[in-house]
């Protein structure tokens, strides 16, 4: 039904590459905003949820907004908007720099989340077919597994502590910090042991036993991919020209 859902992960990688590059090159707030809006639209069409993405990234967003505000305040060039005595608190250029930073990073984050609308296996296969060495692709894949492993391990330990009577909701911040500090080492060691076991499991199943590797799955470029790549090229080149 929705053509965008059938997009090859390689087309998405291409889009992310082009748009992120443009986001770094463009200075104008208008063009950056256009990139952001279009990326949101593509994300939505590919089956991702813009709002969901923002919600998941809310902590990072707070951080970005914070940095943007700090950046605005510490920029002293431009026409002052707010001054206290002779100190310029906020200038128009500062606001511009803050917004620029915010939108630029949002473009990169939103366009990258387009990649996540492909399944893990499609993405892996896409990278492999882009001739990225499979050692590297699997390394990324395992890194992606390692973080949840670490999180699970951590949660298990926290639950164990809660079962033994520590109420994490009630104890103060300082005590919580101490508790976490004690958890950190065993959790890390455990996760490392687990990932070592995982590496051995991969090895006994022939990972890197041969120089080459066959591929059961194969991604094929379709017309929609061609259309998508060409339109994103026209779109970005257009922006570059009228800039």
């Amino acid at each position, binding site marked *: 039904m929705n053509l965008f859902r059938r997009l090859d992960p390689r087309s998405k990688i291409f889009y992310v590459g082009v748009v992120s590059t443009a986001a770094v090159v463009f200075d104008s707030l208008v063009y950056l905003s256009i990139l952001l809006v279009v990326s949101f639209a593509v994300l939505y069409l590919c089956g991702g949820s813009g709002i969901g993405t923002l919600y998941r990234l809310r902590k990072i967003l707070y951080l970005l907004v914070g940095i943007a505000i700090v950046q605005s305040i510490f920029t002293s060039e431009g026409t002052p908007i707010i001054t206290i005595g002779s100190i310029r608190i906020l200038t128009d250029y500062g606001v511009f720099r803050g917004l620029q930073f915010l939108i630029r990073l949002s473009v990169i984050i939103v366009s990258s989340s387009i990649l996540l609308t492909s399944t893990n296996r499609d993405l892996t296969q896409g990278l492999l077919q882009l001739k990225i060495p499979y050692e590297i692709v699997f390394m990324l894949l395992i890194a992606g597994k390692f973080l949840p492993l670490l999180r699970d391990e951590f949660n298990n330990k926290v639950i164990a502590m809660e079962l033994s009577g520590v109420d994490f909701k009630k104890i103060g911040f300082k005590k919580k910090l101490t508790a976490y500090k004690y958890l950190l080492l065993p959790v890390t060691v455990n996760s490392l042991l687990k990932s070592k076991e995982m590496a051995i499991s991969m090895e006994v199943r022939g990972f890197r036993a041969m120089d080459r590797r066959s591929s*059961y799955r194969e991604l094929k470029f379709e017309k929609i991919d061609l259309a998508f790549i060409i339109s994103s090229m026209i779109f970005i080149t257009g922006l570059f020209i009228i800039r």
Partner: protein
Amino acid sequence: MIAITVRNLGFKYEKADHWILNDLSMDINKGEITAITGGNGCGKTTLLRCIRGLTPNIYKGKLVGDINILGKDLKEMDSLQLVKTIGIVFQNPETQLFSSTVEDELIFGAENLCIEKDEIEKRLKEILTLTGIEDLRLQNPGKLSGGEQQLVAIASVLMMDPEILLLDEVMSWVDKNNRIKIKSILTDLKNKGKTIVMVDHIDENIEFADRIIKI
């Protein structure tokens, strides 16, 4: 015919001060199910690691004695030969499965051995049926029950069609139904000519074996 001979095997883990395996000798017949049993910590897992050639390179330590696999000295076999000849399923299913679907998990080993697409397709159908996990094909292995995970781990190894299969307490995370299933799968494999070595310390799990060796 004998598939595996172990002669005067000894192994001591790096930094450990005692020999886990000491002057151990045994013969394992081809085309049979051999069960190895013994108390907790007596070195069953270590023995499988030695037979699979994971010691002393991956599990560091001091190894003495000889192991012979289908007429070849283990020391002379390279990693590719080992992968193709001996499949091993470990005790903990959690760290053996790393793919995002069962299907991917199964084809991983076959792709590593550079097996052609059509052949992979054929094996995939065969092994999904043999292990009875067709319905799980597109599921995430991490979200399955212990028993299902162990079936997937066994299937993943079978995809590489090894002559010898080593199984380390594969029944321990598994419910009764799946235990019965695993026994029948192993018997099927034996009838196809595979040599199976299984480690288990529970008598009930190994009664169906052709031979039981206590270490």
